[in-house]
């Protein structure tokens, strides 16, 4: 019994001595740690390098591998809008109309100089007739160079939309209610209205913007309707220029207040000696939650015997349009309008129109429309324009 115990003790001591011999010294451990730390640093660098390469690859892929400056395609954008209408008239033939098909094209020449253009086909077809009585028109609606000549201010040079009213500048069909555009802005403003010249834009204070234009003017007959005076910059007579100024206040979310004044010394472009014209337009838009209300008033005051003789020395109108969005997709509206192109004649009767209906946006940029137009006071004899209207519109 005693001998095996001694033997075991000797063997254990022998193994313990060998194990002690195999343990690294502190300096060896330190060296090992240093080596491992160096390897960790190398691995860290490799990970950082790999990460950089991955992100650089992602940068290149995301930017379309376009080396150097932006390509022509990146500086050029296209867009457009269009609308088809169906009018079920109560007192005349129903009608379908490819009312508008519009293409935009813009190009960024540099950070502060760009081109904007818009070409429109109206009513689907143009026919070259002697008297110009074809069903449609191809129109250059906008084509201007915009130059940010100093911080906060820019100028449009060329053919641009007049800064007036609610729908003259923004009239993509998905942005307004009603299959047809409102009759007050159509007949009084008269939208859509463009001229050629210079238009300065900028901000005076946060939310207070100005527009100031010097441009070609209208050319009406002596005593003519305002809408018939649009020359559309087509070999337009430019004997008398027009001056437009607008102030627009949008410093409260959901609110827009705007006032436009336009002066033209002779709206007949010299056909008669005196035909001073002054347009005054005011509008307000207020949106809170699902509710929006739009209201506009516009008035032309024209001096001249021909205009005074038939009551066209005053041409004016107004409308109010409340609307309610039931959901993101569905909106309901009603609009009451009054306008009169012979308002200077005491016996003239205002055109009064009620419109009500809905817009259904199947996509934020694609809208289906259904509405009813009720001409309360009809000045067109037996032909009443009361109609149920359907439309589809889009913009992109």
């Amino acid at each position: 019994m005693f001998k095996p115990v001694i033997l075991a003790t000797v063997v254990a001591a022998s193994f313990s001595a060998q194990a002690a011999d195999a343990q690294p010294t502190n300096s060896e451990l330190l060296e090992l740690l240093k080596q491992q730390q160096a390897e960790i640093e190398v691995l860290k660098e490799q990970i950082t390098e790999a990460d950089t390469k991955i992100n650089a690859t992602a940068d290149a892929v995301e930017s379309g591998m376009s080396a150097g400056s932006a390509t022509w395609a990146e500086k050029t954008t296209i867009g457009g809008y269009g609308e088809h209408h169906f009018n079920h008239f109560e007192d005349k033939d129903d009608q379908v109309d490819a009312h508008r098909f519009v293409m935009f094209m813009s190009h960024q020449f540099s950070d502060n100089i760009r081109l904007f253009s818009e070409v429109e086909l109206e009513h689907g077809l143009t026919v070259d007739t002697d008297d110009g009585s074809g069903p449609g028109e191809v129109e250059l609606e906008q084509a201007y160079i915009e130059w940010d000549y100093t911080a906060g201010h820019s100028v449009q040079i060329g053919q641009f939309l007049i800064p007036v009213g609610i729908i003259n500048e923004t009239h993509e069909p998905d942005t307004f209610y009603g299959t047809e555009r409102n009759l007050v802005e159509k007949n009084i403003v008269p939208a859509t209205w463009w001229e050629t010249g210079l238009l300065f834009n900028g901000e005076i204070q946060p939310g207070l913007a100005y527009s100031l234009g010097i441009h070609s003017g209208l050319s009406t007959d002596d005593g003519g309707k305002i809408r018939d005076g649009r020359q559309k910059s087509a070999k337009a007579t430019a004997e008398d220029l027009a001056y437009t100024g607008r102030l627009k206040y949008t410093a409260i979310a959901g609110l827009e207040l705007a006032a436009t004044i336009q002066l033209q010394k002779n709206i007949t472009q010299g056909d008669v000696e005196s035909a001073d014209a002054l347009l005054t337009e005011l509008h307000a838009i207020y949106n809170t939650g699902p509710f929006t209300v739009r209201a506009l008033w516009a008035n032309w005051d024209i001096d001249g015997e021909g205009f005074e003789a038939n009551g066209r020395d005053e041409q004016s109108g107004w409308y109010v349009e409340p609307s309610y969005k039931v959901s993101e997709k569905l909106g309901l509206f009603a609009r009451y309008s009054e306008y009169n192109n012979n308002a200077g004649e005491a016996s003239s009767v205002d055109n009064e129109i009620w419109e009500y209906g809905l817009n259904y946006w199947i996509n934020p940029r694609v809208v289906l429309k259904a509405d009813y137009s009720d001409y309360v006071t009809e000045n067109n004899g037996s032909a009443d324009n009361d109609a149920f209207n359907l439309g589809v519109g889009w913009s992109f």
Partner: protein
Amino acid sequence: MNKLILTFILLLISTTALAQKGQFMPLDTFKKAYFSADTQWQTMWVDQSLRAEIEKILQHPFNGLRIRYWQQEQRSGWVFEEVGKELPITAGVVIENDTIEKLVVLEYRESRGGEVRYPFFTDQFDQASIVSDAVDYRMDKDIDGITGATLSVRALKRVALLALFCHQQIMSNE
């Protein structure tokens, strides 16, 4: 009359200039306002399922491979570019505890609609959070629009929603 017009123009030009478009806040300034100096970009890689959800929010294809962000505990910061009508708007969004702390328009490039950069508009996004159902994602509060800036307003709503969604993703992965 011509002299009057010219005088008016000169008066306007001499007024303190307010840029309708341009860079309104550099990226570094935005970062420093909401995150500590040592906060580094992090990357959220966009896989197929994530891309599908992002495209649902943006309502158009998303071509990026990753989305970069800053994170500091329950706060995250996102910078997105989204086209309004023609040109991209650069917007920064800070999310804290699943709600928007601040949305800032860093750079606006469109000719019209630059009012969206002002606090009277962007403050509406404060404290907004995301709500989702089987069909889509939306915010839990209404944002009143700006007439004539409809497309820019919509672009910023998409940016806000995307930031809220991405914040949810990184928080759920922790």
